[in-house]
């Protein structure tokens, strides 16, 4: 009986474990294992941290109508102590400093490979900071983890477009158009971007230009 159970367990693990690993590519990651179920939340936080870095460490977003309760005793003093301790002024990183936000995208997608926004925004920022090869690789890695999402094909298609690789750009933009779904409020704008870039890329193709 025990031998039967052991053999069944061995067979099941031989069949199931590779399937499980391919379904969740991050399962072997030590960071993900350490964080367990909170890895997704940590990925969101890492993605938000990129935004905080871009704003020079300013994480405060006061809601409209928010006013410090200065009528309460010591309130002004406490608000000043808290305000001075952390960055509160609005500023953006510029130039080479923009590279500082990049590691957070790498962390976010490592924690959650299905974080489309992190793949997409990360790819954009790699491109914007001049690291074009890395932007392409980042978008390609995102596509590998999320082959059914149009957004990453659009991003990679745009990178190819700017690199003047017209055929690659057309191929990705066509994949994006084929996979497009009305997923959120940005999707209609994305469709317009797909159509726009696709027509430009097609018009620049050597075969079209020669004609």
């Amino acid at each position, binding site marked *: 009986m025990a031998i039967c159970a052991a053999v069944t367990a061995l067979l099941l693990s031989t069949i199931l474990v590779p399937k499980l690993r391919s379904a969740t590519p991050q399962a072997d990651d030590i960071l993900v294992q350490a964080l367990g179920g909170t890895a997704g939340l940590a990925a969101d936080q890492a993605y938000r941290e990129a935004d905080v870095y871009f704003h020079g460490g300013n994480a405060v977003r006061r809601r409209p109508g928010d006013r410090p309760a200065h009528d*309460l005793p010591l309130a002004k003093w406490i608000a000043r102590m808290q305000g001075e301790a952390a960055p509160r002024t609005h500023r953006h990183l510029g130039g080479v400093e923009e590279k500082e936000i990049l590691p957070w995208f790498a962390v976010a997608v490592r924690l959650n490979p299905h974080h489309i926004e992190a793949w997409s925004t990360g790819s954009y920022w790699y491109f914007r900071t001049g690291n074009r090869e890395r932007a392409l690789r980042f978008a390609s890695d995102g596509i590998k983890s999320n082959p059914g999402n149009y957004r990453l094909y659009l991003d990679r298609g745009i990178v190819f477009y700017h690199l003047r690789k017209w055929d690659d750009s057309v191929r990705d933009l066509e994949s994006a158009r084929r996979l497009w779904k009305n997923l959120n409020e940005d999707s209609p704008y994305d469709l317009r971007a797909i159509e726009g870039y696709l027509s430009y890329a097609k018009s620049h193709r050597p075969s079209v230009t020669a004609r």
Partner: protein
Amino acid sequence: MGSLAIARLSVVETLRRKEFYVVLVLVLGLAGWMLMLNLGSSGAGRFAKDIVMQAIWLASFALAVPLAARQISSDVEQKTVYVLMSRPIHRWHYVVGRALGASAASIVCFASMFAVLVIMLLAKGAGSIADMGLWQAFILQIAALVMLCSLAVCISVVATPGGAVTFSLILLLVTRYGSASILSRIEHMPAVARETAWAVYIALPHFEFFNISQRVVHGWGALPADMFLQSLVYGFVCSVFFTTLAAVIFRKRWL
């Protein structure tokens, strides 16, 4: 044998234990990893500084709280307190000595880990160690550790070591990371609840005053001198208050 001798005893006891060395090795590993790791950005100085700083700050708290919380209770459990009390010292000498000892031991642990950060910054060449803000952050963290140790010792006089650790950590985390958010909620409360919540809020130990790590990481420069001094004075007053309260409670405690 006075408070200072008891404090010295606490530091020696802490350095004999292995927890600190394990944490120091982990911090060294993390700093080394951050030095070698290229996450796709050649100038990821802020990221490395941020990660290592946060790890050191949290590790120093994690070492300090159990250390301070078990100072008195382990003496009572192991009957060491009777040996110490048989000497010509007052009970308050003993409590002050234990609180000072826990603080001194935590500062030694933190300073060793901070040295790792400084070495990493020198090697990375990303963050200047001449930044005044970095040294202010170091001093403010020491003030926070002293305040936290006094708080943990104070709670441990009336609670079990486990309870003291849990309660101190909750107070630390809530005030250090959630204080601004709580303040925003209080602002939107109806009148009576607002004033009651405010009274509770200002009575809490405000650990967020000592957290200027984001200023340092993002290069916002040093705190204005008056704010820096006010934070130190606040930390000192709170530490004295918690230690005095612990001494008063312990004086009346049946051993």
